[in-house]
């Protein structure tokens, strides 16, 4: 049955809270559920397990760490990726480090849940793609799905994982519809990518909303005889190198498409790895399409140029396969 992305997220939360009484949810306005994902959970699980917090990202993120360290399994909803900046200390110095720096005495099973990336003109403080900042922290897992089914299967896995997980729902995908399994045992393993479109001429490596942009580009390229393979990583850390490398072996061309910034962005990591390990399979230099290095501007007329779009992907692919105007 087709369901909205945000409904798939809600189902995952509901099923996992029902399955494990140690799981609880807290954050700003989670009872009301501003993005609808957490709406209604309080009716079933009560205010002890669905906790409306003050707007205090650092304190709440840290309280989650302490709860996880003592045997609970918190899901901390901090709304937007850029709000995670206020919580960065607790995530990058405590949540990820406590198990290791205390010699394995504890584990920190916590999920930080936020929206990430460009939305409907949300402006410079609600549109950035912050995932590379968390890929750069050791010992956290980072996830960003591209469709409802993946969101459900991955969020359930994240909640069951014993490591800290940053779970990014792309801000523009809440209203996306897709088939979602009803099976409560439906899980997608963290770290497994998915080939969303088969192709032979170029590998488009991507994640989140950009997966859908690449799929659109793939459709446009098809009649021109260019078959693009779209690898949706789904998990940014750990990421499915094996799947990407298999694809590159087949296509010989690699383009990273990601909303995050060019410098030290997710695409930089993917391209560097492909260049290091797959050089002999490449027919042309691996390339990146990234977000422009500016705060995301408000005006819809400008935002569309700030991150990769379908036209940019089509154009770059054509150049890489030798069909476009020279760069």
């Amino acid at each position, binding site marked *: 049955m087709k369901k909205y992305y945000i409904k798939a997220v809600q189902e995952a939360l509901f099923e996992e809270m029902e399955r494990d009484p140690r799981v609880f949810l807290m954050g700003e306005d989670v009872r009301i559920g501003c993005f609808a994902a957490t709406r209604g959970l309080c009716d079933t699980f009560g205010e002890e397990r669905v906790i409306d917090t003050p707007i205090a990202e*650092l304190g709440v993120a*840290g*309280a989650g*760490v*302490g*709860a996880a360290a*003592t045997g609970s399994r918190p899901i901390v909803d901090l709304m937007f990726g850029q709000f995670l900046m206020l919580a960065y200390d607790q995530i990058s110095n*405590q949540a990820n480090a406590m198990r290791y720096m205390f010699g394995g005495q*504890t584990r920190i099973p916590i999920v930080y849940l936020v929206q990430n990336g460009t939305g409907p003109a949300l402006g410079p403080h609600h549109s950035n793609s912050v995932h590379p900042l968390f890929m750069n922290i050791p010992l956290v897992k980072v996830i960003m799905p591209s469709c409802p089914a993946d969101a459900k299967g991955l969020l359930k896995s994240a909640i069951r994982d014993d*490591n800290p997980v940053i779970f990014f729902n792309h801000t523009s995908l809440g209203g996306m519809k897709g088939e979602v399994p009803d099976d409560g045992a439906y899980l997608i393993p963290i770290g497994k990518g998915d080939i969303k479109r088969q192709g032979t001429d170029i590998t488009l490596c991507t994640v989140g909303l950009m997966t859908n942009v690449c799929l659109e580009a793939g459709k446009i390229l098809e009649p021109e005889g260019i078959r693009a393979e779209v690898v949706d990583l789904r998990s940014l850390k750990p990421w499915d190198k094996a799947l990407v490398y298999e694809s590159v072996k087949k296509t010989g061309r690699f383009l990273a498409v990601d909303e995050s910034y060019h410098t030290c962005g997710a695409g930089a990591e993917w391209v560097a790895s492909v260049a290091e390990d797959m050089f002999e399979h490449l027919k042309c230099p691996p390339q990146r399409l990234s977000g422009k290095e500016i705060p995301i501007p408000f005006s819809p007329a400008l935002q569309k140029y700030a991150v990769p779009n379908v036209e940019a992907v089509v154009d770059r692919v054509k150049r890489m396969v030798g069909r476009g105007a020279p760069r």
Partner: protein
Amino acid sequence: MDKDKLIFMYERMVLIRKFEEKAALLFSQGQLAGFLHLYVGEEAVAAGVCAALNEDDYIVSTHRGHGHLIAKGGDVNRIMAELFGRTTGYCKGKGGSMHVADFSKGMLGACGIVGGGIPIAVGAALTAKLNKTKQIAVTFFGDGASNEGSFHESVNFAATQNLPVIFLVENNGYGEFTPQMKAMRIENIADRAKAYGIPGVIVDGMDAAAVYETTKIWAEKLRAGEGPVLIEAKTHRKSGHSEGEQAFLGGQAYRIPAEEELARSIDPIDILRSALIRESGATEEALAKIETGAAEAVEAAVAFAKDSPFPSEADLFADAWV
């Protein structure tokens, strides 16, 4: 007050003192690597608080954490081994002085980020509330940390949730090398409690019995369902912020002369010792035996640490992912 309880606190305080003095010596001899923040002078706070707690209550510590762990029943062998970076240390050499922890005793870790441990205690209290266990959580932090955003966010959140947390500020008058009055315009940090609608209490942090009595009262209230409390223990750092700090100071003085004189002249161990003899009938011999025993335990800890192996490269990724 119950003599056994006073003796118990005396044992822990003396053990902390002997441990810290030994650590200072080892550091000055170049035998310990890294940073070393000592608890000398503040022993009555940790000992008094922890004597009033149950074994399964939680504490969260600071960068000055050896004393808190010893007070909660930590093993000096494993703390010393951690300072030496050995595999037998509490953290198998991964944490060092600033990250000693013993989860089996509810000690959820020392912490190298000022204010970093405060929200963690709030989370431990959330677990206790969720599981209806009647455990409480104490977070120790300094006057300096009370200026951090994490303090404000944590106290306010705990207050709104009525969580069983004791926010225990050890006011030693200095945030690193900066006197308290240069970092805030109030003298009593307990006054900040009012801003969160919770009680704020001041206790003499040099008097272990007073710290114990105060903590006991509030621990019982919290177990009965009363919300958080801010307890300010006025104390003094007999050591500096960090051992070997002269290297950072370039010869500049930072202590306020009158405070430094006071810190030198009063000693929480002497205060408890006198009280034990004067009011509880403890004998010199009995107390001397405690002191000798503590010194021997610390010597044995050093030997244990030095006899323990260093971790190897193969241990680098141990305890990383679950």
